[in-house]
């Protein structure tokens, strides 16, 4: 087990290294660059060349890369070309917001998705199932930003139930401990701050949760249907077991195996969804940094963010593999 984890973690190093080359080359192959983005209308070839020289972008790409790599090994991923601040501290500040949003969205998706998928399978072909199948289809198809604006228009503007954007109301004096606004409020016993943060969290979390929710429902439904028709469920029924035992021990325990993989994959994808959601709800997390970085061709920031995304994805997959080994005795880590 430990050897498996260590080996998988060591595999992360070449993965990130290869990815850094690709990201580096890809970013620099895009049309336009930081200089023209920064200078805008005032860009003349001379000014662009001057700025490029200052930023070190006049060097051959491989020289730039080696410089980047050398600094990266010392833990320095460069400074943002927009703010001049080290990108890592920028990310460190924005990360809790995104993690909070993603965790909330994932909680919604998992706690609603699994029961809904199960019920849908149990009542296959009946109105509840048909409604669920159609609902999940819509859920996957509706773009996050559209849903985000819709939620905002209805629940924030029309009904006034939730704040339309941001993470905290103006005038709330919250102590920052971990950067997770809801958690901070609980830790410092500033419950009003916690509550305020929670109300801000609802709409963006719902918007971000729709796609993973729809996917989890569908996978759970398909998986439960599959298991319900299996021989060992028939054996369980032939034993005369109580329906709750059949359901929990025999159906769900097996049906959730593929669902756990799905949850892992969806977690990795949340980051992508977060970019749009954060934009709609002015959330100020990683997604906002990324969107801004792309507009401004902020190479160091984009490099760091893309590598971070890859790292999260790899780690989440490792977690999925580990959890799989725990819930499925047929999987042996070696």
């Amino acid at each position, binding site marked *: 087990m430990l050897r498996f984890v260590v080996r998988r973690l060591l595999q992360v190093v070449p993965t990130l290294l290869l990815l850094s080359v690709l990201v580096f080359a890809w970013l620099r192959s895009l049309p336009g660059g930081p200089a023209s983005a920064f200078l805008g209308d005032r860009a003349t070839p001379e000014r662009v060349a001057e700025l490029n020289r200052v930023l070190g972008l006049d060097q051959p790409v491989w020289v730039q890369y080696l410089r980047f790599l050398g600094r990266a090994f010392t833990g320095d991923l460069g400074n943002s070309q927009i703010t001049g601040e080290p990108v890592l501290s920028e990310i460190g500040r924005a990360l809790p917001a995104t993690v909070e949003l993603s965790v909330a969205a994932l909680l919604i998706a998992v706690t609603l998705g699994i029961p809904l998928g199960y019920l849908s399978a149990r009542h296959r072909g009946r109105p509840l199932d048909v409604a669920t199948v159609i609902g999940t289809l819509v859920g996957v198809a509706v773009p996050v930003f559209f849903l985000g604006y819709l939620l905002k228009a209805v629940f924030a503007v029309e009904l006034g139930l939730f704040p339309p954007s941001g993470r905290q109301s103006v005038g709330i004096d919250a102590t920052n401990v971990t950067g997770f606004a809801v958690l901070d409020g609980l830790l410092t016993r500033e419950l009003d701050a916690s509550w305020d943060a929670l109300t801000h969290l609802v709409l963006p979390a719902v918007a971000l949760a729709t796609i993973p929710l729809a996917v989890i429902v569908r996978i759970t439904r398909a998986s439960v249907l599959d298991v319900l028709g299996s021989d060992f469920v028939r*054996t369980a029924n*032939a*034993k*005369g*077991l109580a329906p709750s035992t059949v359901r929990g*021990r025999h159906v769900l325990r*097996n049906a959730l195996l593929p669902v756990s993989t799905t949850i892992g994959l969806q977690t990795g994808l949340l980051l992508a969804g977060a970019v749009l959601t954060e934009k709609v709800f002015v959330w100020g997390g990683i997604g906002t940094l990324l969107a801004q970085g792309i507009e401004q061709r902020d190479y160091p920031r984009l490099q760091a963010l893309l590598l971070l995304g890859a790292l999260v994805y790899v780690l989440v997959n490792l977690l999925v593999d580990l959890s799989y080994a725990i819930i*499925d*005795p*047929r999987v042996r880590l070696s």
Partner: protein
Amino acid sequence: MSAAAGAERGIGAPLLEVRDLRVTFARRGGPDTVAVDGVDFAVAPGEIVGLVGESGCGKSVTSLAIMRLLPERGNRVAGEVRMDGIDLLGLSDAAMRERRGRDLSMVFQDPLSSLNPVVPIGVQVTEVLRRHRGMRKEPARREAAELLDRVGIPDPRRRLGSYPHQLSGGMRQRALIAIALACRPRLLIADEPTTALDVTIQAQILGLLAELVAETGAALIMITHDLGVVAGLCDTVNVLYGGRIVERSQRHRLFATPRHPYTHGLLSSIPRLDSAPGEELVAIPGSVNDNLPWAHGCAFAPRCPRAMEACEQRTPAPEEIGGRLLRCHNPVPASAG
């Protein structure tokens, strides 16, 4: 065990009586399929009854209908399945669950897929003990180990913690048998219990089943396509074709003088060690797909070497002839074995 012993045990009121059992599957955009078409048979306490036939003859559906394990939707079950005089088909789901695993239980064909892959064997044995015998965790584990020991699983204590994939095919089937017999049911239904196993293991499992039912006094319904299994085990044999029983007889009589052309064909298609060199095996031509609907005549007629005009026009009625049930217009003469 000897046939005489079987017959002796067969005396008395039947344990299970199946009367006019009909199972119909609804097919989307087509006529319903009649899988079991008026099957009658009885099982006496301790008796071993065979249901024999090729794939699609309705033998498995019959057993699942008795256990009430057919899918909830898409089928209709009619008739009666009386156990201790109570019609199982009329019981509530909860009352049926009380009986399943306790009064009657079942061993299935494929032991790997019939065991839950992510639950230890021990739990899969103890859960039935705890459900029907109200045992607590520890006593149930001890009992489970004893059960595994009795079905011939070595090192049963350790095996309680094993998962199905860690056992061999034969061991898995032994475990399933232990589960089925855990509450000492009076009726065990074994649906092709050896089909998925290696030939060398088959005889062991059959021997074990015979031994255990003799020991516990349970009656056994053995469902198989393999007349070899029947030959070594059953007291009474029911031959099914197209969802109906076409011939029923005491085992020795059936093998000595098969009267229905289908039974005759089945027996002739078995290779024999004492057959003359160069003698060819006779296969039954066609397949169950060639069946005639029973309503119009004999379902076997299109494949039958002895078919007459009447066979395709009138449904043969079941007749009792010399202690045997026969459904045929033109049976094989009793003298021609």
